[in-house]
């Protein structure tokens, strides 16, 4: 089986962000970057399938400037076989532009499966995987939380709001991965060493013009400081009164 996984380098979200001077990007000083968690679960799914299907191969692809090679190397350290960097100065916000650049590379790969994380926490759109599938004319199942592949066909489960959807699909297909599908393996020391010797190809990305412009980024308004109404069950009447009269939610 030939499997491709698209991975994105994203900043650690556990920080207070600052808007850069140009007000259309986030200040990257002091930010730590790593592979998007959803993409790591996609890599894990790909590796598990490869390990079950002898003769299979997994390729990790990432769009962006040279720093994304760190992210590809992380995937290689987890066990991915080869990497491809689609070199671009910036990763566009527009999911369609990203999808077109990725589809250009993926279409000649002869992949049986193309995996994505369902979304990335920075741009938070969650559209690239499904758009790539449409551009390639391939069937797609998004946000899967369980997966079985056998005999050129697949079964997956999707979480809906208060329900679950059970889906069947043929290969080749595009899948986007949700939390709960698996736990991503940590790179082992051996894996880190081996990754240094695996092939990482650099190609120029074809980024089309976009119809989206980020006009500005801002921090959300600070929540007004709240207060502790009281202690124990005796505070309940006061709370209920405030919810009725002040917050007007009851």
């Amino acid at each position, binding site marked *: 089986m030939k499997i491709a996984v698209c991975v994105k380098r994203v900043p650690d979200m*556990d920080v207070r962000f600052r808007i850069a001077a140009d007000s259309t990007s986030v200040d990257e000083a002091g930010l*730590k970057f790593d592979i998007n968690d959803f993409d790591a679960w996609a890599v894990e799914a790909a590796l598990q399938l490869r390990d079950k299907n002898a003769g299979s191969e997994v390729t990790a692809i990432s769009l962006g400037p040279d720093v994304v090679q760190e992210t590809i190397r992380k995937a290689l350290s987890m066990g991915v076989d080869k990497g491809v960097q689609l070199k671009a100065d910036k990763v566009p916000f527009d999911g369609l532009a990203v999808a077109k650049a990725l589809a250009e590379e993926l279409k000649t790969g002869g992949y049986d499966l193309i995996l994505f994380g369902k979304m990335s926490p920075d741009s938070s759109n969650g559209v690239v995987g499904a758009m790539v599938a449409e551009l390639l004319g391939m069937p797609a199942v998004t946000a899967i939380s369980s997966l079985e592949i056998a005999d050129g066909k697949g079964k997956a489960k999707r979480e809906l709001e208060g329900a679950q959807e059970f889906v069947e699909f043929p290969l080749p297909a595009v899948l986007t991965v949700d939390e709960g599908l698996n736990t991503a393996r*940590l790179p082992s*020391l*051996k894996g*880190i060493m081996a990754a240094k010797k695996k092939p990482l190809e650099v190609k120029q990305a074809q980024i089309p013009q976009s119809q989206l412009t980020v006009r500005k980024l801002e921090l959300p308004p600070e929540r007004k400081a709240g207060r502790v109404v009281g202690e124990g069950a005796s505070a309940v009447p006061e709370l209920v009164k405030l919810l009725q009269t002040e917050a007007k939610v009851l």
Partner: protein
Amino acid sequence: MPDRAGKVLPVIHQAALPLDRLILSDPPDPEAVPMDVLFVGGGPAGLAGAIALARLIKADNEAGGDLGDVQIGVLEKSGALGEHSLSGAVVNPIAMRALFPELTDKDFPFRAPVAAERVYYMTDTRSVRIPTPPTMQNHGYQIASICEIVRWLGEKAEGLGVNIFTGFPAAALLTEGQRVTGVRTAPSGLSRNGDPGSGYAPPTDITAQITVLSEGTRGTLSQAYLEWQKIKSGNPQIFALGVKEIWETLKPLDAVVHTLGWPVPKDCFGGSFMYPLTRNLVALGLVVGLDYKRTSDDVHEMLQRMKLRTPFRDLLEAGEMTEWGAKTIPEGGYYALPERRHGDGVMIVGDAAGFVEVASLKGIHYAMQSGMFAARAAFNALKKKDTSAASLKEYDAMVDGSFIVKDLRKRRNMRLTFQDRNFYVAGLKAGLMTVTGGALFGGKIESHRDAEVPRDVSPPQPFVPDGKLTFSKLDAVFKSGNATRDDIPSHLIVGADITPQVADLYTHMCPAGVYERDGDRLVVSPANCVDCKATDVIGPRWTPREGGSGPKYRQM
């Protein structure tokens, strides 16, 4: 043997160093990852050593030497370089300049040169400016964040082909006879009872011709090596605990500030520091010797109280604390240096060896320089194909002949005079020692292990944090970036006979709130641990745990 009435003697409640787990004589796993030189700990000492070694090898190869491809590794327990690094810091740039002679001071990851300095003496009620004591003069030095220094060194190291492995704590030394042959890393993904859970990754063996222990303060494997080899020192190593915060302030700070006196009790050694990283980003902290005299002495709480007073309050008012952390500092100085810091296949560098000059609060340049000496000795050993103790002995000679030991020797009794219970007498002696360059009061002062100092059982002063200037330990740990999973198995070895008074000692000893007294029992929350090592010094033993656990310092 129980404590005397009204006292707690920490050492009788401490578990012994588990040598049988830390020094292994099994042959390494056939799947072991082979390195040539392995630095255990990715701080300034380990990284400077790795960089220096990589450069020596590169120059040698380019000149036609036959070393070829030498694998240099740096093992770091935190998830990313710098996450467990914490210091003041005001740095003497001498080692940085020696390591990068082709760069100038403005290329280095320092924040600002020291412009002005102020020292205050504080009492319960007043803060009085005093002339800067000679030991604390920092003219010509640079204010810096050790996290930023470490990250910068890390990039340089990776650029030179050094293999940096983050998230991999070394949990044991691999040995063959008397020789150190490598390390075994800690497993990850254990459930609370110690069984492999989901995401389990087993320990990995790494073999190396030379292992350099650059573990930092109270390094576990360094302690194990010294004990295993029965290496002595004139005095036992002693430690101080530093608790530090970073604040964004509305008012600017234009000077390096140190204070002596309150809130450090008169019978304790310590003082505070406050440095401007930028005009409105301030690093401040309090350092107190771990030989303090009461079970209720609590360095985190002392720091919180201190912030409510001049010269701190005014500056911090309406500001915001962005980070908090804690770390111990080896204070024994010259007489506490191990008599041998090398062996077959091994060298000990940096804080792990005790290269810290406490009167001036300096250790980073000593750490880097010692790493560079170890690199030179390792390079020579590889060329000679002899990595035995006899060959690596030149590392000790280089350190002994350098400014590292010269400086430590000059100030050899500074700290120890403060083991006197009288601050003023000690201060007088220390002053005379400095002024006479060690000629007066220069004879070795015997010192006691911190754990052998008895503490009076005393009730704590009630402390209620206001959540604006002062914070609880729980809030503080949150600001250290610690997100260790709640169900991690405990890495702390609690000793015997933990009475309620011992539980009180531990509660106040630990800045991160790992220990609490619940009724008469000791409750341990190991996930809160920020790896400061105070516990290892006077409380339950610290052992390496899953990689990536603990704090995530960013600008400490």
